[in-house]
C-alpha cells in the first residue's frame, strides 16, 4: 500500500560517527566542568528577604540538563525524529516537573505560616 509508506516514514536519517564523537567529547568536558565547579563557592542571589538562590546547584543542574539534552537529541536521535517522538518526550518531562514542582510548592510554603 503506497499510502502507508508515507504515513510510517521510518527515520532513515543515519547520524554520522563524527557527530557521536563530538557529543562524547562535549559530555566528558561537561562532566569535568561540573566536578570542577563543585569545588568552588559560586555564591548566591538574595532575591527577597527569606528567598535566596544558591548558584552551585543551579549550575550543576544546568550542566546536567545540557548533557541530558545532548544525549537525547543526538544519541537517542530525537533531533531527527518525528514530531510525535518529540511531543512524547515533552509530555513525559512535563508530568515529571508537575510531580516535583507541585509537591515542592507544598513543602516550600509550609514555612510561610498560616496566611
Amino acid at each position, binding site marked *: 500500500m503506497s499510502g502507508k509508506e508515507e504515513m510510517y516514514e521510518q527515520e532513515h536519517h543515519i547520524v554520522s560517527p563524527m557527530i557521536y564523537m563530538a557529543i562524547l567529547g562535549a559530555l566528558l568536558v561537561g562532566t569535568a566542568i561540573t566536578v570542577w565547579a563543585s569545588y568552588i563557592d559560586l555564591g548566591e542571589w538574595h532575591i527577597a528577604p527569606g528567598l535566596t538562590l544558591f548558584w552551585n546547584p543551579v549550575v550543576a543542574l544546568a550542566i546536567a540538563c545540557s548533557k541530558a539534552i545532548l*544525549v537525547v537529541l543526538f544519541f537517542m536521535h530525537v533531533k531527527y525524529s518525528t514530531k510525535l517522538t518529540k511531543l512524547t518526550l515533552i509530555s513525559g518531562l512535563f508530568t515529571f516537573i508537575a510531580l516535583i514542582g507541585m509537591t515542592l510548592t507544598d513543602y516550600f510554603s509550609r514555612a510561610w505560616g498560616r496566611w
Partner: protein
Amino acid sequence: MSDSTAVRHAAEAEAHEHPAYQRHHFETVAQQFDATNFAMWLFLLTEVMFFGGLFTAYLVMRNWYYPAFVEASHQLNIGWGTANTGVLILSSFTMAMGVWNAQMRRKSGLVLCLILTFILGLGFLGIKSIEYTEKFEKHHIPGFHYSLSSFLNPASDEEVHKAYPADKPLPLDMARHTELYFFLYFAMTGMHALHMIIGIAILGYLIVRAQAGDFTTGHVTYIENFGLYWHFVDIIWIFLFPLLYLISRY
C-alpha cells in the same frame, strides 16, 4: 492468520511478500519499526515517572537537611563517581556506534560495539560495588548498624577529614539525618544499578543474536530500541551524579 504463538508458521514465511521479521498484524516493516520505537519511548516515560518519585523524596529531604546531605556526600569518593560517569558516557557512545553499525549493516562493527558497551557496563557495576563495599565497611548502610561517628566527630574519619577539613561536627539530630541521605543514595543508585543489570543481561542476548547476523539485514529495531533504553539509563546517572556527589565540595 493466527497470532497464537502456540502454532508457528515457518513455511508460510516464504509465501508472504514481507520479511520474516515482520509480524502479521503490521502492514509494513516501517509501521512495525515506528510502532515499536514509539512503544519504547512510552516505556521510557514510565521509567521517568518511576524515578520521579525518588527524585521528589530526595529534593524534599535535601531541602530540609542540607548540612547533613553536604557532609554525608563527602563520604562518597569523587574519583570513583567521576570515573563511573565517564564510563557510562563512553558506553552510551559505544551503544550509539552500535546502532550506526547496525544501520550500515556492518556485523563485526556492531558486535564489537555491543561487546564494548557490555564491558563498560560491567565496569560501571564493578566500580559501584567497590563504592558499596566501602560504605559497608564504614557502617554507612541505613538500617544495618548505621554509624554516626563520622558525622558527630569528623576528625575520627581520617581520609574524609583530610579532604574536607572545613566539615564541622554535626549536632546529633542533624547527624541522624545523614542516614536519610544514605538511604536515598542506595535507593537511587541501587535502582539505577538494577536497570543497568537488566540492560547488561539484554545486551548479552543481543550480542549472541548480532553475531548470528540477525540485526544487520535491515532489522535494526531491537538494537535501536535497546539503545534508547541504554541512553536513558545513562541520563538518569547524569542527574544522579551531581545530585548525590556534587552537593558541595568546597
